Structures are given as structure tokens and as C-alpha cells.
């Protein structure tokens, strides 16, 4: 197998990236990573990631902004907090993964057709307008946005089973005081 290695020059790195992520994840300890690999060995999804959690932390420290933000790794984090409770340096790895997702969305470099990114955005939208999530509508929007009508068809038998057992609500769930919620959400805006 031919080894392909892309050389990254110093000027391609972003010296502010580490600080940005520290701020966004409310985790000051990122510098203290000792590269022990506990996070990666605790991660149920590491094998599917393009960079392991340990590598992501090293790359954040090194300023590899472009590579980190375009990576699938944060989108393959299922927020299990295993790494976070085990890290000997008290690095909030799960919170960092969340911060990376937000930053990737804010800078518009997130994988636009990757179901997890789309689902997060769609659920956020539903929630902002109605105050509660509705699975059916979430699913419909998800398959539409990922251009995956086949996926929708494959879900049909499950949908029927959920309907039969009374576990699928067809109506759009919503809170009463939507006005209050909208006012609140209009006045706060994060996303990094």
C-alpha cells in the first residue's frame, strides 16, 4: 500500500484555533492533554471516525482548524461522556466535540448531506418554532434533506409498528406559550 501523506505547512495552521475551542467548549484544560489515548480507547465509535478523539485533541492544540472542522469525528460522537469522565487531565472531550459541531455549522463547513448534521439542524428548527420535537416531522425533513427517499421507504414498516403500538404521534407537538419562547430564543444567539 502506498503511503500518502499530505504535508501541512505552518502558515496553513490557525494559531487562534485552540483558544477559540477553549472558549466555545468552556474547557481551559485542552493544553494539558498528555496524549494517553484513554479517550480513544473508551470511545464506542472511534473505529468509524476519520481522526480518533485523541488525535482531534492533538490537532486542536496544533491549530489544524481546517482538518478538524471538516472531519466526520464530531458527527460520530454519540455524547456518551465516557472519554470525558475518564480523561486523566480533566479535558471535557464531549463538550469539545459539541463545540466543533457548532463551529463547523457556523462556518458552513459541516457535511451537508450527513444525516447526523442534518438531523441536529432540523430538530433545532422544529424546536425553535414549536417548543417540542415531533419525531415524524423530523424524520420526513431528514430524508428530504439527505435526499434519501429510499431510507424513508425502509422506515415504513417501523412506522407502522409504532403506529400500531400507539407510539407515533402524527400531530405536530407544540407548547402553548410559543410567543414567549420565540421572544427568548430571538434574544439569545450562540453557535460557536
Amino acid at each position, binding site marked *: 500500500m502506498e503511503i500518502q501523506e499530505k504535508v501541512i505547512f505552518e502558515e496553513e495552521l490557525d494559531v487562534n484555533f485552540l483558544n477559540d475551542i477553549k472558549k466555545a467548549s468552556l474547557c481551559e484544560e485542552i493544553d494539558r492533554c498528555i496524549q494517553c489515548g484513554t479517550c480513544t480507547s473508551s470511545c*464506542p465509535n472511534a473505529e468509524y471516525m476519520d481522526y480518533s478523539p485523541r488525535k482531534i485533541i492533538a490537532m486542536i492544540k496544533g491549530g489544524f482548524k481546517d482538518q478538524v472542522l471538516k472531519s466526520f469525528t464530531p458527527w460520530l460522537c454519540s455524547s456518551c461522556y465516557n472519554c470525558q469522565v475518564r480523561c486523566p487531565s480533566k479535558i471535557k472531550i464531549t463538550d469539545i466535540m459539541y463545540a466543533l459541531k457548532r463551529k463547523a455549522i457556523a462556518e458552513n463547513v459541516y457535511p451537508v448531506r450527513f444525516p447526523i448534521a442534518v438531523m441536529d439542524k432540523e430538530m433545532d428548527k422544529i424546536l425553535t418554532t414549536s417548543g417540542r420535537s*415531533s419525531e415524524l416531522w423530523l424524520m420526513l425533513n431528514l430524508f428530504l434533506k439527505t435526499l434519501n427517499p429510499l431510507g424513508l421507504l425502509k422506515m415504513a414498516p417501523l412506522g407502522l409498528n409504532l403506529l400500531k403500538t*400507539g407510539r*407515533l404521534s402524527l400531530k405536530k407537538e407544540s407548547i402553548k406559550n410559543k410567543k414567549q419562547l420565540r*421572544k427568548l430564543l430571538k434574544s*439569545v*444567539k450562540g453557535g460557536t
Partner: protein
Amino acid sequence: MNNYIYYPGCSAKTNAKHYEESILPVFKELGFDLEEMEDWNCCGATATMSVDEKKVAAINGRILSLAETAKKDILAPCAACYLSLKKANSFLTGGTDQAAEILARLKDIGLEYKGTIEVKHPLEVLINEIGLEKIKEKVQRKLSGLKVACYYGCQVVRPFTNFDDPDYPESMDKLIQALGAEPVEYAAKTRCCGGALAANLEEVGSKLNYILIKEAVKKGADVITTLCPLCLFNLEIMQSKIAKKYQVNIKMPILFFSQLMGLAFGLPKEDLGFSRSLIPLKAMWKKLENGGANEQ
């Protein structure tokens, strides 16, 4: 005695109706008349946190302040809600400038949050406040012979737990034992089910859930009990995918721990949401009927 307000979360109104249908009557039996929070909103779960962290603090702040107005602590059975609320609570009471900003915006819409509310999981209240002795007293019908794999998943035991171990918790096992059933030694009890990834990334979902179910089968469990709506959902719906992918035939019932509690308390079986199971429960009923007598 009742200092709690019930925060159902979205799942308990849709795919996890049987959680609510069992938690409420079980707590009632134990003397807690749980009132549902008026006009509660969604906690945002893992999705909103991936988009906008201030929004998460704000919507959870609304929930916390509604509880404060009612002068009651929050009882949140859903693992994702429990974590979101606990996380937001520690953020909002942290005294930072960012927290002050969110609190000010909440005040603008007439919702002041002073930070007096605690967020608890039913399991925590059952074990620490009500106690196993009282639970044992309520048992009318011992679940003898039933082998149960207690599955805790992630977000109740990590990272905010103060009532159990993040790696090898035992509170649900003790509870199940108090009902007369037999908890099996379940090494996968805090391994991740894939959460929101599972249903969307089949490859990931079927593998993670196969690990969980295989371990339960290996230990001879008749049923897996859980405390999380999303775990229950994943464990149920991935079984057909696992069967195809790994060429195995598994029919492992997945129930909320509260359903087994209701059953042991002698509450009417029909009212505890057993009919909502996507997996047939026949083998489990049979086992319960003969109290495990056919076991070697």
C-alpha cells in the same frame, strides 16, 4: 410528601408512552402524586447542543424557572432531559458572565431563575429517598425466576451522577432484586447504544446494539430493562437489522424498569404499557407464570 414536579420530555408523549404510563402509577403507589409541569418545552437533547449552546441554556432555563415558580424540584425520567437540565443548571448557577446574560434574557420574558432547583432522576429518588425497604413492602407479586439485564446507558450515570458509579452502577440492579427478580452480571450496562446515531447510521447502530444484546443473551437474561427512552427505542428497532446483518435470531424484550416495578406492585398489567413493546413478550410472561420453575 411530594417535592417534585414531573418533567416528561418529548419522548414520554410519543415513542416512550409506556415510561410515563408506568412511572406515574408506581410513584403514586409510593405516595408521590406527580403533577406534570405546565407548558414545559423540549430540553434540546443532543441536537440543539450541536447547533447553539446559548439556546440550550435558555430553553432549559425556562424549564428550571417554571419549576422554581412551582417551588418544586424536577423529576426527569428521560436520560437526555436529565442530563440537559443538570448541565444547564450547573451552567446557569456558575456565576459566569455568559450565564448572567442568559438569566437576564429569561428575566426579560418574565422568567426569573434564582438557581434553587435540583434535577433528579426517578432511580435516584427511589434508591435514596424512598429506599429499598419501602419498595420491598409494596411488592405484591414477586418476579421470581425472571432474569434481568439492567442497562443504564450513558447520560444518567455520566458525567453528573452523584448517586451511582459512572462505569458500573448498581442502583437499578438493587431495585430489580427488591422486586424478587434476578439481575444478571451485565458487563455492558453502561456501554453506549449509539444514541441519536443508531437509527441514522445503521452500520454503527446495529453493531453497538448487537454488543449490548449479545452480552445479555450470554448471561441468560429474559429481558433488558432500561431508564432511557432512546436506549429502549434503539435496542428494540435494531433487533431486526441485527438479525439480518449477523444472521442471528434474537427476540429480546426491552422494558422500562418502572414497568417491572408496576407489575411487582400488583398494578393492572394492562395499564403499564406492556402492549407497546415492539418485541413479543410471550416467553417472559411464561417464565413469570411458572416462577422460573422450569429452570435448571
